[in-house]
């Protein structure tokens, strides 16, 4: 076993250990055991950092990959298949190493932050336990080398999300939100599960490596539509977990959880798992599937951004912004900007975590006030928070010199390239929606900054009846609640903000603030060669309509590669290690070229859009040149449409949820009345038959019986005389019979 594997197993199991210790012993430990959680995560992060250092910094090889597996379930010699084993395993490549470090770092920071934010909660210890199981599951997703274990950890992540969203379970809204989140995720999961089943039914393995090897070798026996379906169904898992349209509805509601949880789970890691998963299965996505993915991503990005501009709850704005940014990543993957999407995943994780933790600090300082309309002027009271929040906001909006700029720009460039390659038309909708969303992002983030930190405090404007206090920690504080006592938060909440803000600066990722491709990240994460499409001769038909001169060159080379070498997947990466892009799939190569060409246009357009967005927000909300309320009134239908989140919740409520409940009632009625009715009806029928039978019995059969009884009675009256009760009479009778027998016997003997 490679030493990195050993280390990664330790990293994986450490949070589980934290969970086990805290769930059972938190009440017996001092400080309810929060130091256990923080300490264990610190250790895990240290080890992850070492892994990161070894893999990324020391090895610096895009094709780096170590793997290890063990037999988990042995099904023996299965008829028709042969020896069937289900293996679990760990794979470490560059992406894993980066994700590992990112997840443990954010988790560590959130643990640390929570020691301040959650202090005094009655279930304080359990909170850290839940964070532990979440981190464990998330690391499991990151490290898995097969679909089955990813699915397992996927659901476990859903569970921990369920537990953490409903952490304040006494609030009905929290209980509703946790259920909604779990169910929405489940809907996504069944799609993912079906996708897994399609692949398994063909290859009888769950392992990525073997599935890809088999696909590359053209062993997929079903039609290509099934392969596209498999890709899309697997993508459904991502739709659920990464809150893509149409399953995005759970994420904003999930803000009912404690704010650090929102930072960890619903901004940085869990929702990114969907994107991570799509990246893992990227190579088996057919072009058709990728198109669908790209459109869903673009639509999600746009829709969420439009909703975010009208929300008043500070966390909800961030939640919709998360949905929107996740849409970007999915869009990126869909258009083939693989490394850009993952780059955005990482950068977004840091600055969005920073934003959420910052908003947590604000909420904490404002005594659980979440409505931005009643905030304002906080920059003077909370300078650290203000600084870090602003930096992260700029990164999210995508201003140059930030990490977000580089990653978003790379995605948009990819989108333009993609549209160019696909031949325009409707495909230009994708980059257009992307740029428009970028502008909206800048606008609503600008609005948030202006509303929260600038101007004067508007606490007093809040209508008295609108007071709503969460069941968050410190409800005792509300008694001596003073509006002017807004303080900067303590060090253990401030430190994470600073660290995350620093990680939002361009220099961490790339020396060139305008081009992420020059940084270590983009160099280490290369688009893997697809195993479907032209590389797979079964699938050539798919690409008959998009012939390319490059295809002819690439095709034979890869075919031999794929057929003989199980590592066909990494074939392209080996080539890439030499310094040049060498895409196995010509289409990918084309898009990469086009994206490269579109790099500078993208920069210009997006910068303009962002600056325009932020300025517009300033014009509207600070200088009030345009009155926001009047504008809203002027476009009221649109405003309401956005404020009510495009009415998705209502639509789902009235169709799926009401429909299900109604159907359940109908079926239950059917069960008790029809099916049981039939059963009881049969019983009644049988009973009536029995009654009919009974009357027959009474008059016909009973008549006979009575007659018999009568004759027996008469005979009995005669015979009764013989019943003297004297033994000897009986003996005499017995002997008479014996004698009779003798006589009978002898007469027979004689004649």
């Amino acid at each position, binding site marked *: 076993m490679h030493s990195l594997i050993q280390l990664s197993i330790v990293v994986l199991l450490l949070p589980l250990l934290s969970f086990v210790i805290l769930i059972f012993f938190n009440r017996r430990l001092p400080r309810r055991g929060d130091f256990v959680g923080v300490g264990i995560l610190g250790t895990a992060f240290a080890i992850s950092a070492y892994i990161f250092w070894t893999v990324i910094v020391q090895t610096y090889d895009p094709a780096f990959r170590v793997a290890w597996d063990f037999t988990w379930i042995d099904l023996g010699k299965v008829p028709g298949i042969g020896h069937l084993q289900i293996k679990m395993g760990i794979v470490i490549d560059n992406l894993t190493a980066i994700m590992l470090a990112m997840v443990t770092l954010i988790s560590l920071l959130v643990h640390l932050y929570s020691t301040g934010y959650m202090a005094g909660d009655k279930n304080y210890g359990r909170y850290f336990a839940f964070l532990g199981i979440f981190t464990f599951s998330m690391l499991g997703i990151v490290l898995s080398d097969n679909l089955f274990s990813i699915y397992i950890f996927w659901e476990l992540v859903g569970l921990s999300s369920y537990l953490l969203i409903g952490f304040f379970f006494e609030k009905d809204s929290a209980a509703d939100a946790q259920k909604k989140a779990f169910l929405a995720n489940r809907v996504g999961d069944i799609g993912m599960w079906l996708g897994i089943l399609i692949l398994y039914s063909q290859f009888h393995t769950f392992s990525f490596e073997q599935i890809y090897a088999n696909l590359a070798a053209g062993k997929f026996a079903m039609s290509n539509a099934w392969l596209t379906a498999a890709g899309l169904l697997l993508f459904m898992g991502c739709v659920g977990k990464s809150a893509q349209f149409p399953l995005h509805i759970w994420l904003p509601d999930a803000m009912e959880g404690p704010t650090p949880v929102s930072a960890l789970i619903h901004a940085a890691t869990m929702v990114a798992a969907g994107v991570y998963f799509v990246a893992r299965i990227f190579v088996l996505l057919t072009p058709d599937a990728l198109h669908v993915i790209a459109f869903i991503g673009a639509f999600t990005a746009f829709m969420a951004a439009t909703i975010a501009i009208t929300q008043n709850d500070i966390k909800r704005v961030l939640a919709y912004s998360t949905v929107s940014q996740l849409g970007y990543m999915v869009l990126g993957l869909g258009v083939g900007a693989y490394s850009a999407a993952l780059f955005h995943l990482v950068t977004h994780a840091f600055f969005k975590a920073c934003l959420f933790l910052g908003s947590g600090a604000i909420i904490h300082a404002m005594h659980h006030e979440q409505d931005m309309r009643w905030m304002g002027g906080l920059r003077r009271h909370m300078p650290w928070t203000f600084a870090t929040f602003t930096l992260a906001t700029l990164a999210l909006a995508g201003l140059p010199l930030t990490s977000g700029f580089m990653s978003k720009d790379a995605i948009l460039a990819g989108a333009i390239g993609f549209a160019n390659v696909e031949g325009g038309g409707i495909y230009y909708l994708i980059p257009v929606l992307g740029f428009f969303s970028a502008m909206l992002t800048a606008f609503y983030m600008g609005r948030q900054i202006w509303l929260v930190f600038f101007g004067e405090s508007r606490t007093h404007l809040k209508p008295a009846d609108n007071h709503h206090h969460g069941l968050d920690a410190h409800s005792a504080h509300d008694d001596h609640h003073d509006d002017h006592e807004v303080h900067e938060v303590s060090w253990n909440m401030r430190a994470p903000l600073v660290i995350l803000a620093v990680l939002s600066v361009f220099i961490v990722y790339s020396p060139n603030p305008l081009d992420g491709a020059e940084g270590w990240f983009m160099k280490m994460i290369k688009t893997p060669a697809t195993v479907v499409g032209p590389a797979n001769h079964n699938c050539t038909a798919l690409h008959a309509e998009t012939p390319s001169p490059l295809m002819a060159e690439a095709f034979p080379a890869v075919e031999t590669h794929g057929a003989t070498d199980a590592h066909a997947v990494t074939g392209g990466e080996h080539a890439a290690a030499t310094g040049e892009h060498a895409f196995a799939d010509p289409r990918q190569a084309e898009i990469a070229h086009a994206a490269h060409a579109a790099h500078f246009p993208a920069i210009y357009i997006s910068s303009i859009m962002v600056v325009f967005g932020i300025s517009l927000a300033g014009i509207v909300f600070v200088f009030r040149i345009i009155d926001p309320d009047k504008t809203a009134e002027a476009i009221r239908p649109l405003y309401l449409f956005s404020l009510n989140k495009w009415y998705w919740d209502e639509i789902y409520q009235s169709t799926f949820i009401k429909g299900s409940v109604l159907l359940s009632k109908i079926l239950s009625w059917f069960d008790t009345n029809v099916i049981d009715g039939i059963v009881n009806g049969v019983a009644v029928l049988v009973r009536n038959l029995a009654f009919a039978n009974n009357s027959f019995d009474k008059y016909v059969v009973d008549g006979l019986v009575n007659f018999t009884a009568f004759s027996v009675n008469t005979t009995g009256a005669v015979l009764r005389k013989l019943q003297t*009760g004297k*033994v000897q009479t009986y003996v005499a009778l017995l002997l008479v019979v014996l004698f009779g027998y003798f006589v009978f016997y002898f007469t027979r003997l004689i004649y």
Partner: protein
Amino acid sequence: MQHLIPIGLNHYLTISAFLLAFGLFAVMTRKNAIVVLMGVELILNAANINFLAFSKYNGGIGGVMFSLFVIVIAAAEAAIALAIVINIFKIFKSVDISSVDTMKE
């Protein structure tokens, strides 16, 4: 007369038939329970004679053994029967079994 001279199986059987018939008659007709018991003993003796006779003329020992057991069981039967008779006497103040007819109704 040639029937009578060499003593054969039939002689014994005849005797046993007489004993059986007398025994049955006693059982059937006598009112005194003790005499009824005597009749039973006669029947048992008749059976024993048959056992031994067949045993002798068949060369087997089974009949002998069986008669031995019959004697033992007869002894047991006599003891129990007499005990019952004494009980009947206690209850009905009589050993007249024709008065013991509570089974009638």
